[in-house]
């Protein structure tokens, strides 16, 4: 009998998740006044004003909280360096609870009560989709960090660019690209370990459709036998039948795309029962730095796709800067910025640079100049080099994905949970993450489970 799909959220590079947490609009930073100061309406040019940046995330999740803290870091760093256009920067945060309705209310109030100049956030695609009309109507720059649905751009910008021009996605690459990269990763595993049979298991949600449709057929094309290509119900909590099915199919790895379904139980069951295959894919919960302790160490050998290698590899010189700054500020869960944190940090900084170039942050009067400068972005971020696709490209304003997962543009990385050398584990554990793919950023070999 089903509970409505839900739970666990750790949201995703890819998308989505929901829970029933709801929103709280709160002002972080100086002076929590909920009034609109006349001078700040413009926020443009003049000194002494305040530029407010809105941040919307499901902050009950590690990815959401990591992002919120990273946004605060970015804002503090900007203020130390004189703010934006000589204005102080203030972060206004809200909890979307991964629910479109909550996010819609929160952002409406951020716009009308707080007069935010820019909005960053959301790892949840349905939230991003539902905010598109609202922010477009207000000509509000909206930088999406985390949500990976291509629909955001295909349904909006590609139809009417002028209306939706203020919405950008600095990262990660969209889920179609991710599906393609996952297949390339499968080929890498095949070459590395000689595996010829694989299983693709996706949760039955819209964000995984590309993985079911594309990843499997691309693997087949490269000569790998996809013995299982299943979609599992969102309220699955007994994994035994699925793991058994993968085992009996003879697959050497199960490539999963799992966000809503809690996978802690599956992971421990896989490890403790020594199912003879590797676990790879997009496993949102496993992106959290605390996944090792959540699963009591049974996460060892599990790999997941992520951006910035979750900070465990030096993608750009800025990666470790953000990682170190975060860790010197915060030592509670999540103990690293999470991949979303890196992208959010980048988003705020590239926005700051763009409005400096435009000479205005007044989105109500001069959105065209701001959009023009955002379009012209060529920014070295902590997760990679960021450029946006042009108005005439297939996904206008979406991040430029580069030629492949391993080049400098919007890199796509796979990390594996591995045993750490003595005392180097995350927190007090003896587990750590290493980047195992693509080769450009690799700092560890992909290990097969010891029992295989």
């Amino acid at each position: 009998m089903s509970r409505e799909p839900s739970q666990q959220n750790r949201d995703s590079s890819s998308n989505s998740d929901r829970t029933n947490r709801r929103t709280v609009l709160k002002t972080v930073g100086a002076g929590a006044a909920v009034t609109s100061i006349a001078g700040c309406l413009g926020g443009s040019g003049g000194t002494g004003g305040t530029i407010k940046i809105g941040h919307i995330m499901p902050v009950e999740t590690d990815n959401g909280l990591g992002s919120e803290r990273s946004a605060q870091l970015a804002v503090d760093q900007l203020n130390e360096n004189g703010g934006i256009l000589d204005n102080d920067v203030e972060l206004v945060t809200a909890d979307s609870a991964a629910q479109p309705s909550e996010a819609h209310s929160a952002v409406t109030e951020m716009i009308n009560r707080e007069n935010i100049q820019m909005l960053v956030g959301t790892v949840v695609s349905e939230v991003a989709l539902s905010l598109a009309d609202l922010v477009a109507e207000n000509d509000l720059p909206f930088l999406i960090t985390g949500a990976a649905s291509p629909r955001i751009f295909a349904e909006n910008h590609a139809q009417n660019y002028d209306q939706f021009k203020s919405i950008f996605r600095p990262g990660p690459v969209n889920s179609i690209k991710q599906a393609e990269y996952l297949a390339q990763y499968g080929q890498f595993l095949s070459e590395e370990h000689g595996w010829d049979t694989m299983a693709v298991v996706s949760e039955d949600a819209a964000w995984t459709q590309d993985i079911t449709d594309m990843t499997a057929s691309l693997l087949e094309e490269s000569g790998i036998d996809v013995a299982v290509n299943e979609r599992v119900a969102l309220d699955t909590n007994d994994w035994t039948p699925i793991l058994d099915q993968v085992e009996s199919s003879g697959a050497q790895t199960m490539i999963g795309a799992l966000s809503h379904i809690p996978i802690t139980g599956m992971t421990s069951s896989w490890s403790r029962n020594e199912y003879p295959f590797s676990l790879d894919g997009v496993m949102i919960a496993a992106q959290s730095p605390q996944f090792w302790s959540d699963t009591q160490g049974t996460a060892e050998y599990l790999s997941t796709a992520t951006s910035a290698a979750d900070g465990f590899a030096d993608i750009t010189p800025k990666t470790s800067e953000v990682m170190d700054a975060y860790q010197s500020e915060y030592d509670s869960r999540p103990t690293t910025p999470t991949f979303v944190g890196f992208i959010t940090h980048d988003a705020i900084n590239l926005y700051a640079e763009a409005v400096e170039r435009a000479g205005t942050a007044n989105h109500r009067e001069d959105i065209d100049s701001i959009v023009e400068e955002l379009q012209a972005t060529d920014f070295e971020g902590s997760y990679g080099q960021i450029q946006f696709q042009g108005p005439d490209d297939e996904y206008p304003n979406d991040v430029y994905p580069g030629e492949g997962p391993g080049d400098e543009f919007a890199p796509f990385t796979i990390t594996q949970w591995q045993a750490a050398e003595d005392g180097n584990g995350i927190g007090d554990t003896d587990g750590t993450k290493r980047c195992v793919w693509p080769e450009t950023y690799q700092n560890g070999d992909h290990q097969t489970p010891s029992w295989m």
Partner: protein
Amino acid sequence: MISDIITILIVGAMISAIYALIAIGFTMIFGVGGILNLTHGALLMIAAYAYFVTQPYIGRAGGVIVGIVLAAVASYGVYMGLVRYIEENVVITFMATIMAALALQEAMTMAFSQQAQVLTPIMPGSVAIAGTRMQYDQLLAFVFSWVMIGMLWYYVTNTKDGRAILATSMSERGAIFTGVDLPRVRRQTWLIAGAFAGVGGIFIGRLQQTSPEMWLEPLTLAFMIVIIGGVGSIKGSIIAAYLIGYIETLTVALLGAPYRVVVALLIIIAVIMYRPEGLYGREYLE
């Protein structure tokens, strides 16, 4: 083919045993007081979290005992602290208990986050039975289920207190005539129901998931099983638990997991249309 059938038989039996554990407490409370206790699912959650928190310190057996005791105490607490004052109004009780369950869900979220937790196996390891991999904990749940049913049967047929419970669930008026101390019967019933929920909760939490939202699905199940089995009938609930368990297993095998709740709804509608009193029920509330 044959092996598929055997798999379904075994998997179905294991899950049904847990469903029986969940439903028995719910039906007992319904039987003796006419109360639908919608905090029942939350009691399962309390037991699972109790095991999760205490097991690292006092071991697996200790964790199980604490989980069961805490669920029983919580059940008793719900009765003494809330339901006792409003039980004369069935509708208010009905809504108050679901609000209490929602409050417990939020409290658990605040304490343990939304994240689903993994429980340490009670008996680590697994064994293949006729080609089907079974964790020892699944077998343990099956054994626990039947041992507890046996103990309950002994209690209600061979002890004075137990017979009072049975009598009350058959006819409250009759029980009062024969001098049964009704408040005492209710208190005992809530304690026993809580203990059953505790066992069910630990196994559900261990074999499926332990999260603040784990209460709704078992509650829905218990509700369905009680309607199908017949209100207040323990025998009916056990049979209905196996019926639902096997139908679910079959549905998942033949149609896919998303259709479980659809099939369940159809069955419930069929039962309500053609046999509203359920398999072994008296007419609802006399």
